[in-house]
């Protein structure tokens, strides 16, 4: 019988989305901060 464990599948994909999405947000924030630094000069 196939086990009912879809919640683990959903949890793993949500966690992966948070990790990759979070890193993309960090890169975006860094790019923005660099742009501001460059424009101040």
């Amino acid at each position, binding site marked *: 019988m196939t086990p009912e464990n*879809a919640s683990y599948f959903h949890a793993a994909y949500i966690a992966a989305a948070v990790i990759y999405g979070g890193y993309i947000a960090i890169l975006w924030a860094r790019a923005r901060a660099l742009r501001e630094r460059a424009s101040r000069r």
Partner: protein
Amino acid sequence: MSLAPAVQVSSNTGRTDRTGAAAGRIAAFDWFFYVAVAAVAATVVRVIWFTPIEARQGPAQKIFYVHAPSAFVALYLAFALMALASALYLWLHDERLDRLAESSAEVGLVFTTAVLVTGPIWGKTVWGTFWTWDARLTATLFLWFLIVGYLVLRGAVDDHAMRARYSAVLALLSAVLIPFIHLSVYMFRTLHPRPIVFKPSEPSLSPEMLRTFLLALGSMTLLFVALLRVRYRLATERYWIDEVEGTA
């Protein structure tokens, strides 16, 4: 793959025209990044709606399509590239190689984090526990800490040349773990399964599942290249802004 910075490089030492940085032209996210994100989104759609559920493990087996490609990219692309760029830096002393190693290490750390989070969630359903101190899991966690140490070291040393040299040595020492992690499932009795796709015999997956896995591997590779390009550009721009401001 083009790792060209937004400013023009004028010699093999990575020296650029400072007016490039002064222009503030920082276009970190380009079309390649959006193509990679679209490819990953398409893969997730295929995993959820167009890939069969494995009969014995249930829906949780689909964690495989994010866990295994992330591990493959982290170990065999990101950290291998980090080690190669570090070795070449020690030989050629080209600052672009140092920035490439740093960028690859950081992006690889993100992929390894995804591996270390999704793996235990899958493990709970098949092993009955989130974590076990077996060889592959422990070695992967150890590598994660080493890469964190590598990035902390880079932040702690101000001198450019010294930082690049020390971190290149640490990167090479960390990379020794890559073949160990790969072979750990053959060398030790572990709970972690052996490879089911990249092995001498036929893959132990149905054709539909294999196609989904290969799509996931391709899209995660694209995502790695896209993130690496963004991270490398930011490292290059930051370097030149520091140079112009005299803080490098």
